[in-house]
């Protein structure tokens, strides 16, 4: 009854094109923000931060990044893990080289470095598309991991070949390193995920976003009506890589604290984030959240059910978890190829008319 456009008259084009045109949606959005910023930080503990919220939000940033490239601009990429590694190593080098500069700036700069690398590896997209491009980006994945393993300068010649985040503070509260509180981690990541989602939404609603979608839907027609394919594709690679770089930097510095490139940023990571984007819904910011939530929360839920509630041995639970999640992914893709975002859209559409069917 309250989920209606009726009676909510828009009198300007700004109002008409806002992100949440229905009042109830708008209020819900503010409520979610209020809970995320005002309540959760005070009640969060280590388990909820490390198992749920922090990885969920970091993966969301990466999923938003890949969604811009694949979902909005139609360029398939399997190099996400490699680009996250660039963000991680860039932030590590910046943190250790310029200890006086704020970590927040380092994370943004790591995103910028990744954007440059992303554009370089995006150059083949001007010539090739589809599966062939996927293979070209796969090369980026393997090359970057190899590079960070092979060149000791990247890990500051440490004996283990690992990178370890030194303690850095924001407003004299530690946000990286061993002494970090759960709520501090949570707040840093929340700030970034909110900012990234907001930026991504803005970029995809304007002329740049339309040029990406035009390239995705029909690249030849797009060029004939005036889209410069070079600019559209490379800007998608740059912005996508920026987000992925930021997420890689956060993943290493705030979440893991120490990382070894092949383990933390291997090909599995690329696939994981690609699954998130596909399950969540291509071409949807909400879908990035939903997909990340699905892939992060399902294993946690399974573990709690199998090991916690049923008391099964952990190895059996772990194997079963793989099978169930794999099965769920397949079922999902068959039933709703457009992902969770589409389910959400259909639900909203029905709700608008409820209790009437049409």
């Amino acid at each position, binding site marked *: 009854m309250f989920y209606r456009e009726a009676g909510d008259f828009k009198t300007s084009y*700004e109002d008409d094109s806002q992100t949440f045109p229905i009042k109830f949606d708008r209020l819900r959005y503010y409520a979610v923000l209020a809970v995320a910023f005002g309540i959760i930080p005070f009640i969060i503990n280590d388990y909820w931060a490390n198992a749920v919220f922090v990885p969920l939000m970091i993966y969301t940033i990466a999923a938003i990044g890949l969604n811009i490239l694949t979902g909005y601009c139609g360029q398939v990429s399997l190099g996400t893990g490699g680009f996250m590694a660039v963000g991680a190593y860039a932030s590590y080098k910046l943190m250790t080289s310029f200890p006086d500069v704020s970590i927040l700036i380092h994370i943004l700069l790591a995103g910028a470095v990744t954007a440059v690398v992303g554009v370089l590896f995006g150059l083949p997209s001007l010539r090739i598309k589809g599966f062939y491009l996927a293979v070209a980006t796969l090369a980026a994945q393997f090359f970057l991991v190899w590079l960070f393993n092979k060149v000791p300068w990247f890990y500051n010649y440490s004996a283990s070949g690992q990178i370890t985040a030194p303690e850095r503070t924001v407003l004299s509260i530690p946000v990286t390193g061993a002494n970090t509180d759960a709520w501090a981690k949570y707040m840093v990541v929340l700030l970034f995920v909110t900012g990234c989602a907001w930026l991504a939404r*803005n*970029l995809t609603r304007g*002329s740049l976003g339309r040029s990406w979608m035009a390239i995705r839907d029909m690249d030849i027609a797009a060029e004939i009506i*005036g889209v410069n394919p070079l600019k559209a594709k490379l800007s998608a690679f740059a912005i996508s890589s920026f987000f992925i770089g930021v997420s890689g930097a956060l993943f290493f510095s705030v979440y893991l604290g120490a990382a070894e490139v092949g383990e933390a940023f291997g090909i599995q990571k690329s696939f994981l984030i690609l699954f998130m984007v596909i399950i969540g819904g291509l071409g949807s910011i909400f879908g990035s959240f939903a997909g990340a939530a699905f892939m992060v929360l399902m294993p946690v839920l399974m573990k709690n059910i199998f090991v916690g509630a049923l008391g099964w041995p952990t190895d059996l639970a772990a194997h079963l978890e793989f099978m169930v999640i794999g099965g769920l992914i397949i079922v999902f893709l068959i039933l709703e190829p457009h992902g969770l975002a589409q389910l959400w859209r259909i639900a909203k559409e029905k709700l608008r008319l409820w209790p009437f069917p049409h």
Partner: protein
Amino acid sequence: MNVMSPDSYVTADGRTIGGTLMEMKNITLRFGGVVAIKDISFDIREGEIRAIIGPNGAGKSSMLNVISGFYVPSDGDVWFDGAIRPKMRPYQVARQGIARTFQNIALFEGMSVLDNIMTGRLTKMKSNMLSQAIWWGKAQKEETEHREKVENIIDFLEIQTIRKTPVGNLPYGLKKRVELARALAAEPRLLLLDEPMAGMNVEEKEDMSRFILDVNDEFGTTIALIEHDMGVVMDLSDRVVVMDYGRKIGDGTPDEVRNDQKVIDAYLGVSHD
């Protein structure tokens, strides 16, 4: 009768036709050994409706692709607005003020009608990436300005009710209209229509013909169109180019073309005895 002058004249229905807007000079287009267009010259004058007709495979669409910059002619020059057009990419041609629709609808299926038409205005939108990212200042202002222009076109083509519908869900006739809207959104000087009435029923054809005439009348847009429905072509156009097997076999007003023996032969076939 028409009052003819070398530079401009007024048609029977009171429209002023100006000087030459586009001129094709000895255009030849080859694909390997196949000659799609052979040594064709014609002009398109400012404000007129110019039709290109011919049997299937005559090279009409190839000619339109040359005009829109998708094909680069093997020989010959394209003159636009009094200057020879250097070799350029299709999106640069679009920026010169040439917009087109496609024979097989080429809308962006994943976007709404409104977004599709807004995409047509990309050539006019200038705000930078940063301004768009924070959605403040120029980007937002520009979006509203262009939305207003797009809404005018939506009113003009009477598609208000579907503006937020995803294009993929629309019936064929409306898709054609949305595609016209997208091309018009660019405020083109020259509008190319590739079979705007293909596959339409009589009523839809009448609507589309009315829109084409209105566009020409209200915005003064020069139109070049390809169409197979002879009734429509003869009623709409000021001058007609007739092509057959990549050659030009006729050029003139609908009446002249209709009575041209070579054109009749090309369409009806001629006995070789």
